[in-house]
């Protein structure tokens, strides 16, 4: 099939179509679609971030100053949905689209037209979701978790459900594409256990997506029929069970949070060896740890539900299973540290973000371990402690890894170096402010502040103000990121070399910078020494 595609595009295989609409809207090129995904994710990141700024502004001091409580709930709900489905996930798909074919020596994704469709569903899904804010009755305000019966009270439920369906279809198609590409289109000699860890992490993530996105689709469809078609899946008065939704939702939801972190593990496992100039420590253990975490993600869902009144046996099972996740996660952290140990390190911007990831994600992991202890979770649950925990794993985890990946591969994408000075300004400003933003939220939760509230007792005032200041600072820092990207793509005069980084290994560094529109039309001859893990057994 790859051959046929090459034939069809023979005429223009040296460059992209000149026509803007043809190039970007009708693209079947993995690089262009990857760029579209990344630009979309960046826009969503700023949109979701602006919602967060409003949230932190209302929480700046006690008393209601800016928004009505209902609108506040719309903000928290949409902030969650946008950041998860609009920023983090599309960013990973974009990175996968760009890099997986380059890393495995494939000419493109296996299913290029489906690739186009899976991207173009997303803007429509989000327009649909956000349009609800301007409708009578307002947008969804029941939290991104959409728990009934509350979510059934919302007037915009049907829009949200349809938007989630579209996002789910998009994710499933993206996942199918990635699996098909990795399993069928690797260049000869690129054995599975020679693949970069990033490719492994995406292969496993794609299987998670295919397994759980239909579960989410089922859950939200049941919400829809409960509201509009007279079913009683979640209505106790009709013989249903509101807790059933939570079980189904979190059977999707917990693998979902690992969908948002496994590719991050992959990125970090590329960046650290490059700048430590030393192959990743324990390659097979790293791959096996990702697979174990993925497996465990299916049997821990009810730790999100310790306070719903589960039978004691269930609480014990889910507590033990959840604690087990600390083991493979610990292995990954120890292996990253061991990769650095005995290396020859330099600290360019991608490495700084990767190191910050390891430290701050580990802090998020620590609070995760604390949350796993069910009796203690009776206190932590639904408090700001949880908010602090998942922002440590999703912002300083997933988002930091994405930013590390962007700095790492940007010169390969656009052929120019970004400004190292401004990259470092972005890093230091972000890494300090993000801790000012989220660390005090641990204290707030421990002191008893519930999450998802627009106003609070005066005892919580000091740390909320600190957190809000950190929030505005962190938000402003991301404008530096935007500037660095625009400068690198359009203005920078410093050309990037093919290898870009001295210690970089892997096929993506054997093609020119910027990567030509079509690469590996003829499968590369693989020299194991070019690969990061080529000569590791």
């Amino acid at each position, binding site marked *: 099939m790859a051959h046929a595609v090459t034939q069809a595009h023979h005429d223009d295989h040296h460059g992209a179509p000149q026509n803007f609409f043809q190039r970007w809207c009708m693209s079947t090129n993995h690089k262009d679609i990857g760029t579209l995904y990344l630009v979309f994710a960046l826009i969503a990141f700023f949109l979701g971030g602006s919602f967060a700024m409003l949230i932190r502004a209302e929480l700046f001091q*006690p008393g209601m100053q800016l*928004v*009505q*409580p209902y609108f506040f*709930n719309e903000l928290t709900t949409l902030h969650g949905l946008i950041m998860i489905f609009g920023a983090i996930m599309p960013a990973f798909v974009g990175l996968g689209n760009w890099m997986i074919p380059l890393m495995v020596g494939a000419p493109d994704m296996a299913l290029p037209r489906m690739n186009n469709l899976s991207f173009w569903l997303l803007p429509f899904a989000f327009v649909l979701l956000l349009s609800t804010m301007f409708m009578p009755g307002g947008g969804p305000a029941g939290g991104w978790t959409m*728990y009934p*019966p*509350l979510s059934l*009270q919302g007037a915009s439920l049907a829009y949200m459900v349809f938007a989630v369906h579209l996002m789910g279809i998009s994710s499933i198609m993206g996942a199918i594409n990635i699996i098909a590409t990795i399993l069928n289109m690797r260049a000869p000699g690129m054995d599975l256990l020679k693949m970069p860890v990033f490719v492994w992490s995406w292969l496993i993530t794609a299987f998670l997506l295919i397994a759980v996105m239909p579960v989410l689709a089922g859950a939200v469809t049941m919400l829809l029929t409960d509201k509009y078609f007279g079913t009683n899946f979640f*209505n*106790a008065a009709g013989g249903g*069970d*509101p*807790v059933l939704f939570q079980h189904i939702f979190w059977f999707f939801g917990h693998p979902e949070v690992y969908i948002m972190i496994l590719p991050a593990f992959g990125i970090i496992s590329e960046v650290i060896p490059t700048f*430590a100039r*030393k192959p*990743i*420590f324990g*390659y*097979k253990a790293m791959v096996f740890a990702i697979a174990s975490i993925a497996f465990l993600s299916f049997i821990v869902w009810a730790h999100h539900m310790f*306070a*719903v*009144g589960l039978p004691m046996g269930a609480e014990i099972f889910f*507590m*033990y299973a959840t604690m087990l996740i600390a*083991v493979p996660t*610990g*292995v990954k952290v120890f292996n990253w540290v061991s990769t*650095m140990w*005995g290396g*020859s390190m*330099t600290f360019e911007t991608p490495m700084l973000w990767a190191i910050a990831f390891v430290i701050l994600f*580990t802090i998020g992991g*620590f*609070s995760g371990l*604390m949350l796993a*202890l*069910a*009796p*203690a979770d*009776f*206190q932590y*649950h*639904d*408090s700001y402690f949880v908010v602090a925990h998942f922002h440590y794993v999703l912002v300083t985890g997933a988002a930091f890894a994405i930013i590390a990946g962007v700095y790492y591969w940007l010169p390969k994408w656009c052929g120019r170096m970004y400004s190292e000075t401004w990259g470092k300004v972005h890093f230091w400003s972000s890494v300090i402010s993000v801790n000012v933003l989220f660390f005090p939220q641990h*204290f707030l939760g*421990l*002191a*008893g*502040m*519930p999450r*998802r*509230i627009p*106003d609070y*007792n005066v*005892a919580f*005032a*000091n*740390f909320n103000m600190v957190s809000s200041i950190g929030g505005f600072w962190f938000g402003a820092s991301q404008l530096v990121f935007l500037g660095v990207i625009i400068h690198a793509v359009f203005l920078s005069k410093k050309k990037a070399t093919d290898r870009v980084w001295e210690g970089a290994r892997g096929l993506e560094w054997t093609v020119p910078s910027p990567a030509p529109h079509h690469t590996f039309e003829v499968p590369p001859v693989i020299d194991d020494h070019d690969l990061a893990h080529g000569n*590791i057994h």
Partner: protein
Amino acid sequence: MTSGGSRPERCKRVGTAIAAFAAILFGAAVQANPQPGQLNMPRGASEWSAVPYFLNNLALGVCVVIGVLVFGAMAIAMFRFRKSRGAVAEPWTHNTRLEIVWTTIPVIILAVLAYLATDGLTTFANTTGSQMTVKVTGYQWKWRYDYIDYMGKPINKVGFLSKLDRRSDDTRQLRSGMDPTAVTVDGYNTYLIDVDRPLVVPVGVKIRFVITAADVIHSWWVPQLGWKMDAIPGMINSAWTKIPAPGVFRGQCAELCGQDHAFMPIVVKAMPQAEFEQWLAAQQQPAAAPPASAATAAPAAIPTPVSPPVAVVGG
């Protein structure tokens, strides 16, 4: 011996200072409710609330120790193995023995934590032997308390709604211009954590709570009692507490339940048993009607003799 007296005395003084510092830092047991600058979970005021507090501190300690080791190793690596210091990358890429070690040690630590946590779960789940039952019902956006039985005897018609207090409610309106810091009771700021009618309970009695909701899911959380429990329409969850000393304990709804989720606080007032019995008798006074359907039937079936206007939300 020039400064600070004899050794034991100095030790004692240091000890007191540490205790005072710890009290400020961790919101010690004497402080019943959220304190400005509070950094840790409260010890709590109930018998069981020491369990989550202990597990929290233990797990935090374990995390700090592991964190110091891991981040310490990273710091050393970043200092020693930098190219600018002339470090040359070493060729090794794995070490099976090391990997086994750092898989096994966490398993052992986790097993210990799991053992302790399981014990805590077992004691929490055991609601047997309670001497009193209170039914808690969550509404958008208030709580209802019904006293079901006390010392083996059913209680009829003692039940009331508990809503956000008037001063907080006025202050929390958008751009009210009122100062949240001015909402105080006995010098303690009660903005958004005070109610018109608190739940009154006796000390030293094992109280069983049966918790449900009438519209959407709520969660009944008083940090001083050490737990929260979801209030779910159509389901009845149970939990228990035993409070050794009198006090006023404040909490809030913990599960997003709509626009006024932030404005349905919980106040539990624990009083000596004799005082409680007097209070209970006074509550039962106006109930002149024949013994009505008590116990765990629908909440709306129990009329409210002593409460402000009752808006019964569709159940």
